């Protein structure tokens, strides 16, 4: 029976982040955390596999101490146990550091048939954790998976790429990066929510992962972050007479040189 590991990220909810119009700085003081949207599909996929064919799912996250807020939520989505590395270094960790920390933790935990990740994090959306993790762990990587089945130690997957759809097979252990279309994540039911508080969590200390300060130094550093401001004409026709609206719009398009 398969042993699965899902890596997830605890991110700020972008809906709670405000742009200060004066200097376009971001105010995230009121922002709540959430399990990164796309990681929910990875959690759901793992949960469905185990619900169908048995086995066990663990979850793993590397984040600032705020990652502890995620434990109940993540456990309500299927995993039997959650491991977390809560360390301030995560605040500035880049894709290189994150993958190294997760790889070291996954190696330490050991024995997983599949490691699942989402297609990108909902904050930075760098989309590199999965393939990087596979490279570091020496595992094959199946990216952008729209559908998957696991039979014994053979994973069959449908990859959706821009120009084609690929059917691939791989012998486990492997890393799978799932597309958001692979499933619709559950709204945890009452019993799943309540059951989560009885499930175990385990903290892994960053210091116990044997990574050197050099390995933990980010190679990509954020220099500035500014809110994006859309500046548009915002000419809206809202009379109750649809024909009048259409005529005005057509005239506007003509004035813009489009027809």
């Amino acid at each position, binding site marked *: 029976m398969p042993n699965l590991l899902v890596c997830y990220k605890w991110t700020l909810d972008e809906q709670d982040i*405000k742009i200060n119009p004066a200097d376009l700085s971001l105010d995230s003081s009121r922002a*709540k955390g959430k399990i990164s949207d796309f990681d929910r599909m990875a959690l759901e996929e793992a949960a469905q596999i185990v619900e169908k064919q048995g086995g066990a799912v663990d979850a793993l996250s590397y984040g600032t101490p705020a990652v502890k807020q995620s434990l109940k939520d993540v456990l309500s989505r299927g995993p039997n146990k959650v491991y977390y590395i809560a360390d301030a270094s995560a605040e500035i960790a880049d894709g290189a550091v994150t993958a190294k920390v997760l790889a070291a933790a996954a190696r330490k935990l050991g024995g997983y048939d599949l490691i699942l990740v989402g297609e990108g994090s909902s904050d930075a959306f760098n989309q590199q954790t999965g393939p990087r993790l596979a490279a570091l762990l020496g595992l094959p990587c199946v990216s952008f998976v729209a559908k998957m089945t696991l039979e014994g130690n053979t994973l069959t997957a449908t990859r959706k790429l821009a120009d084609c759809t690929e059917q691939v097979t791989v012998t486990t252990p492997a890393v799978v990066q799932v597309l958001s279309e692979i499933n619709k994540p559950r*709204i*945890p*039911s*009452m*019993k799943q*929510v*309540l*059951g989560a508080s009885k499930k175990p969590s385990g903290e892994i200390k960053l210091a116990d992962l044997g990574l050197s300060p050099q390995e933990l130094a980010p190679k990509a550093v954020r220099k500035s972050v500014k809110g994006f401001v859309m500046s548009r004409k915002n000419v809206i026709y809202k009379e109750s007479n649809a024909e009048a609206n259409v005529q005005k719009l057509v005239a506007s398009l003509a004035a813009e040189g489009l027809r």
Partner: protein
Amino acid sequence: MSDDKFDVIVVGGGPAGCACAYTLAKQGKSVLLLERGNSAGSKNVSGGRLYTYALELVEPGMYQRAPLQRKIVREQIMMLGEGSAMTLDYVDYGFGEEVPQSYSVVRASLDEWFAAEVEAQGAMVGAGILVDGLVEKGGKIVGIRAGEEEMYADVVVAADGVNSLLGQKAGLFPDVKQHAVGIGVKETIELPDEVISQRFALKAGEGAARVALGCTEGISGGAFLYTNQGSISLGIVFNPEQAAKHGRQIQDIFQDFKTHPAILALIEGGTSVEYGAHLVPEMGFHGIPQRLHREGMLVVGDAAQFGINTGLIIRGMDLAIVSGLAAARAILASSSPAEAGPLYMRQLEELLLLPNMKVYANFHNIFAMPRVFQQYPQLANQALQFLFRVDGKVPEPMAKGLLRILKSNVSFGQLAADGWKAYRSL
């Protein structure tokens, strides 16, 4: 004990539910607190003042841990005229010498904190769970249903708010009537804390609470303003029945009030950050349903329509907490679920909730007098304008002028009738 059976299930993570669950858990009961929002407080809107005594009843000193905003030392009453306003500003640093009498609060943080306190007492807290039904067996309530799943308890406490769908499902009372509630709308406006202190003549940590009349276009209702840490809660409560008849959208009336020069001066430069709305029980003692319990179920807080509005004092959260506490004490004292209901009613008396509400029982009659919301505030403003005006012309004799202003707003008959009615209501 099995996984799906508790001593008590509390539905709703507001002040009533939390106070109840906290007290029960502290006394060793197995308690499940369920909240439909993703976190407690995330679905809740209130004007924003908590009278501290209620938290003190739950546990002395508890208020010191709570994320309260500002200690209210200024009580203000405002009468708005067209482009003018009269404000009565009462300062009292002595309100509650040892324990400050009241604080402004923001529910998103207050309720979240309270639910965490409940959890720390050993109760199980489940957020993001919508309870949509009750489980009944042999004429008793024995549990709740959320989606396909059920959970069981000796007693279910419905702290599910003013709409109390659960109370209705239990057959305890019919849906609230439109004359019995107010519709409150509220904007939260952020301003630097120092600016708020300055504008309201407050020291750091001190707050002002204001009620305003004359801003509802004659609809029964009034406005409120509370100073928080770094924000101001500004809103109006309308009688929905009258508002509908009046015909102007309530948001538009609210926005006019917000930009009334006397209000604008207080919030200018601020940033609107949230808009909420909520029903408020308005009938006071007479609005309390006949039945607040049946075997296996108690109704607390807004769900029981507990609220006091004297026009000057608006109370809801404290009554919610007291009723939650009353329910908890009743459950702790009862040896069977059947006993809990009558004991709860007795606790509501002993904890002085019902006696308090009885004192103000007829106050809603005052709000049934339409002139309170337009003519009288206007009268006050016109009178003051008359008294303060100096323009070089020969003024009308004072008595004559005041009489003219009085008569233009209200007849002697109306005045006498209103005065008598108000006196009778007190």
